[in-house]
């Protein structure tokens, strides 16, 4: 059987770990740059506050209800995540981390799921829930049920699958996106059980081969392999601290996020061949626009200057004068940087240039490994953007990674 261990309201739980005064109190965590709410404790959820809402639109509600608000402290979350993963690994053996707050594992026969959960919670101080089932997709379903159980754990047995899948709306299935769910609803398919009754040809036609894998998993046949999840895309973006309409300012922001994306690619030894840029204005205003465009690069690359150049060329195309609230940069069509196929018609000079770019990318990677990601920066990505990145006014201490930030215990 496959297990899924998932942390409950992970960022909010991390913020509460060294704050006993916040026990049973509402807590929210804001995105980069304090843009919008990205995580809520269960007490904050109970107040009806929604994930994704812009911070400024919720400021009054948060204040009125005495909700403690934090800027996101990724240093803390990553350290706590590493600990949860280590503890899980020490208890079950092999694990397959899937994201910062969840990991799949092979459930050993002699372990009681509720006891496993109790230990993880005690050892780390982080609330988790455990779901056990025949496949990863079913383990996701089981985990969802487990979150509502008192024990925090749930084993979905084969006999129970039919009964439980009837209660799972299609939009809640792992791997079925919003658009696909709407499509399925149009065909009268509302829950997971109805979906697995459809024949394979229909499923492949409507949901592609990926959707077919999902459905097979719901039927109990393991199909989703995440043993070494390769990076499929990477993204960097921000909600600006102030509305921007100036072209140069936007260019700087794009350059900064292209650099971030390139660094992530370099860290993972990946190149990308597609780059997309998206600008957006305030979603809640009537003249909301979100121009977006994609560019296909001549060769897969993770070379910072090339990505910035590509990013700027897209910006030129999509820019119209408006009050932009933020931007996003995506890199897709990733491939391992070692397996790049050279264009047959490339000249020697071009190949030589590429080898040099590879070397530079590697050096950048080595330096950032030692001195941190912010140590090197391309000149185009500079000051104003940095101000944006630093707008984290309600940042908690790095309790577990900095000696000067240790939590205090009264003696």
């Amino acid at each position, binding site marked *: 059987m496959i297990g899924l261990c998932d942390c409950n309201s992970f960022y909010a739980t991390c913020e509460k770990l*060294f704050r*006993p*005064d916040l*026990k049973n109190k509402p807590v929210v965590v804001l995105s980069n740059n304090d843009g919008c709410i990205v995580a809520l404790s269960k007490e904050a959820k109970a107040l009806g506050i929604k994930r994704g809402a812009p911070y400024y639109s919720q400021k009054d509600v948060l204040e009125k209800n005495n909700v403690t608000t934090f800027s996101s402290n990724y240093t803390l979350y990553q350290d706590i995540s*590493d*600990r*949860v993963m*280590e*503890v899980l690994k*020490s208890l079950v053996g092999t694990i397959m981390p899937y994201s910062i707050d969840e990991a799949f594992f092979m459930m050993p026969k002699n372990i009681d799921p509720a006891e496993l959960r109790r*230990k993880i919670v*005690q*050892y*780390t*101080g982080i609330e988790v829930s455990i779901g056990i089932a025949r496949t990863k997709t079913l383990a996701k379903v089981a985990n969802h049920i487990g979150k509502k159980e008192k024990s925090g754990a749930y084993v979905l047995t084969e006999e129970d699958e039919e009964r439980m899948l009837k209660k799972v709306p299609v939009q809640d299935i792992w791997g079925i996106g919003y658009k696909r769910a709407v499509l399925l609803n149009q065909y009268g398919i509302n829950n997971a059980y109805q979906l697995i009754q459809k024949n394979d040809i229909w499923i492949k036609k409507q949901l592609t081969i990926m959707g077919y894998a999902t459905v097979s998993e719901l039927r109990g046949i393991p199909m989703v392999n995440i043993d070494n999840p390769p990076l499929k895309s990477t993204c960097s973006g921000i909600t600006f601290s102030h509305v921007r309409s100036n072209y140069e300012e936007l260019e700087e922001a794009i350059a900064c996020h292209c650099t971030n994306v390139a660094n992530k690619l370099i860290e993972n030894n990946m190149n990308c061949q597609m780059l997309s840029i998206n600008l957006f204005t305030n979603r809640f205003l009537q003249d909301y626009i979100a121009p977006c465009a994609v560019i296909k690069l001549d060769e897969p690359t993770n070379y910072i200057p090339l990505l910035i150049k590509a990013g700027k060329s897209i910006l030129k195309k999509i820019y119209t004068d408006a009050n932009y609230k933020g931007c996003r940069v995506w890199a897709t069509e990733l491939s391992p940087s070692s397996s790049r196929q050279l264009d047959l018609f490339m000249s020697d000079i071009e190949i030589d240039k590429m080898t040099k770019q590879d070397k530079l990318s590697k050096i950048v990677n080595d330096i950032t490994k030692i001195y941190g990601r912010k140590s090197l920066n391309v000149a185009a990505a500079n000051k104003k953007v940095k101000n944006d990145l630093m707008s984290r006014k309600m940042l908690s201490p790095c*309790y*577990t990674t900095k*000696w000067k930030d*240790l*939590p*205090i*215990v*009264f*003696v």
Partner: protein
Amino acid sequence: MDNKKTDSPTIIMDTPIACGFPSPAADSRENSLDFNELLLKHKSSTYCLKASGRSLENAGIFDGDILIVDKSLSPKQNDLVVAEYQGGFTAKRFKIQGDHIYLHPENDEFDDIIISERDSLSIFGVITGVVRTYRK
């Protein structure tokens, strides 16, 4: 083909060739003492907290000490523990007597904290060590 290169074997020495005799102890080298090994029995469930106050002075814990706290251990009689108390963390000696838990200070100027309902007390972890430096 460059015959010269393939014919002459490369000799690799792992002891530097200095003027003297190679060190007879070079093979016996071990890694030097590792404080993590000494202080962190369960690395991923151990947190460091900074002590503030004087209630455990007779137990050898002073203001400003760094406490090493292992969350994977369940408190036993007479363990030094960190507990959540009145919205903060407090460190005391853990004593069970019947249904009551006593958070016992090690300094006569302080009183016991008595917890009458065992379940209402949340223990953060067990103190397994103290780190103190003298010359900053």
